């Protein structure tokens, strides 16, 4: 992180989904995030906080409502056309959450993994086959599995197929959308280790979206916490996890059960009341004010901005307690 070069920069990235009668879902609302080269940024938050939408908007799978995304300093189009997809496919890719529904059941593994190459590389079909075979063995699958269909594989194997598909064009930046949450504990470790190894060997930059806080702390360099479409806090993963600043981060991490009975017996009840509010009617003020144990009058009128902490300039918190 010494000479960090920004790779992907989102500036006030916004994605609204329209509803009838002029209302809209504020899925992602003005998110500023800089992801540096060869960095893993973990993105955590409750379901409905806009993590996946942010990831998809960032790499152009969804058109942006507002804001910009810059890749190596060059602004990307607001809405991708076929040529944009063709160009960006070689630089940005995505690994999806559900290994059961993200693979086409009527395509063989060879067709699934090789589709990107076929469309964008112009390799001959025999070269293509060799590349697919080498990628299958690289993600820990037998190259002989090429002619099989997705239903013949277990969840962990399918996720490996998804990883091979995303990485075969050798992108620089990959959005991993909950790549392990559908998998069993023992298999999760296999997939996480594979991702780490590929990150090392290919020099990948990852946005790792997950709700498993322990795993995000483990794999990420920096951790970003999202709440209701906006970032609440971002900083080095270790610091954010062990000394959270934003009241929401604090509660989120305190709710995370640790696999250690003694720690759990000492745990104070930190249960948060209420649930994540609707992202449709968002008023002024802090989004978390309604559930926050420390909320002040100011929180209900003035939206806090994501600002660096005075004593820790690499940590950013959007909370009036710190400004």
């Amino acid at each position, binding site marked *: 992180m010494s000479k960090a070069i920004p790779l992907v920069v989102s500036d006030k990235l916004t994605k609204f989904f329209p509803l009838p009668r002029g209302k809209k879902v504020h899925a992602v609302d003005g998110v500023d995030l800089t992801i540096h080269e060869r960095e893993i940024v973990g993105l955590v938050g409750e379901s409905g906080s806009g993590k996946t939408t942010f990831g998809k908007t960032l790499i152009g799978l969804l058109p942006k409502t507002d804001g910009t995304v810059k890749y190596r300093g060059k602004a990307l189009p607001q809405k991708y056309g076929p040529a944009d997809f063709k160009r960006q496919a070689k630089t940005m890719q995505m690994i999806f959450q559900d290994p059961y529904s993200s693979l086409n059941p009527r395509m063989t593994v060879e067709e699934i993994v090789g589709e990107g190459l076929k469309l964008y590389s112009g390799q001959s079909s025999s070269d293509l086959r060799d590349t697919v075979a080498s990628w299958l063995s690289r993600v820990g699958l037998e190259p002989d599995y090429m002619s099989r269909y997705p239903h013949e594989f277990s969840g962990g194997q399918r996720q490996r197929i998804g990883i091979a598909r995303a990485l075969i064009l050798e992108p620089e930046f990959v959005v991993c959308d909950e790549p392990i949450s559908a998998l069993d504990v*023992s298999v999760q470790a296999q997939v996480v280790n594979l991702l780490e190894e590929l990150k090392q060997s290919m020099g990948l930059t990852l946005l790792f979206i997950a709700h498993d806080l*322990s795993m995000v702390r483990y794999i990420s360099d920096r951790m970003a916490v999202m709440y209701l479409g906006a970032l609440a806090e971002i900083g080095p993963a270790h610091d954010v996890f062990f000394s959270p600043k934003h009241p929401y981060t604090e509660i989120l991490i305190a709710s995370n059960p640790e696999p250690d009975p003694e720690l759990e017996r000492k745990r104070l009840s930190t249960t948060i009341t209420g*649930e994540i509010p609707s992202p449709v009617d968002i008023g002024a003020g802090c989004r978390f004010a309604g559930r926050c144990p420390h909320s002040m009058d100011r929180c209900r009128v003035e939206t806090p901005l994501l600002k660096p902490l005075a004593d820790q300039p690499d940590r950013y918190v959007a909370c009036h307690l710190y400004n």
Partner: protein
Amino acid sequence: MTQNTSVTDEPPLLEVKDLKVEFDTYGGSVQAVRGVSFSVEEGKTLAIVGESGCGKSVTVQTLMGLVPMPPGRLKSGTATLRGRNILGTSQIDGQDFRGSEIGMIFQDPMTSLNPTMTIGRQIAEPLEVHRGWSHKKAFSRAIELLEMARIPEAEQRAKQYPFEFSGGMLQRAMIAMAIACEPAILIADEPTTALDVTIQAQVLDLMGDLQQDHGTAIILITHDLGVVARMADEVAVMYAGQIVERGSVDDIFYRSAHPYTVGLRAAMPSNDPSARRSLIPIEGSPPDLFSPPTGCAYAARCPYAMKICSTSEPPPFVVGQDHFGKCWLHHEEVAGGWEKILSGAPTLLTGAKMARASSPLAENKS
């Protein structure tokens, strides 16, 4: 073969012995549960832990008579509630015990409730069925139960339908329904898997408080070791249709007696701020239960496997009070023994792979 290590005079609240369940399919019969024995005490929480497909849900669904037979088949086993049989029947002394003596909550609250009935009616139903209460009396009790489950504005909420509730609220409503008749046992099948951590904490707190107030025993099925550490008194670790280790929650976490338990822990990140260790996955995948292996079901994935492990099934070795592990490494003839291999924290956390290469046991014992 009995796996029960505790000896008491009174019959335990719930005692399950040698439960075996198979499913007939076109491809042959799947041996989903292969000889499971456990007991549950009043006011305590037993966690059944294991990965998908290890038979934990089938075990409790069989107890509740929820496994359709056929294609399911009860091959052997007994289950008694305070000494009275509950297997193969839904009744004790002419009364349905399900809902009245054993309550159950399910993983997915969205699909487990009836979408065409109001929440209040669904909670009131068991009271009408089991206690013969009037519509009105049961409904007003349902409102109290919703309040107990910490649902705000319970009176209005009781008149709403499931689609008007969020996932966490539905799960709390389901708990209210399950405890309506004050059952002695609450079976919770992955109750928080579909929920966010903050909502999970709310639901777990609620279950813990209800247990304290009413002395309910809980059977908690989960694959999340964090939830186990938080909730359980006793833990049964299941693998390939069998309980491979059983002990108190501290036994399981601090004195593991089975390589599978050790492997599960090593595969999870630990949040010890001083330790930066890498994850050690369990290689391979669980065995095919159409034809389970003859020896130890875990042998193929076990870094400590010996010759005997693939030929004969290990018995439950008692390693402490109410603590057993089904692993040949506890056999007295095994040179080195379990302690030497797994007692040290460095081995437990980082040594699984290295031990495979250097273990003296690799060809030591036959």
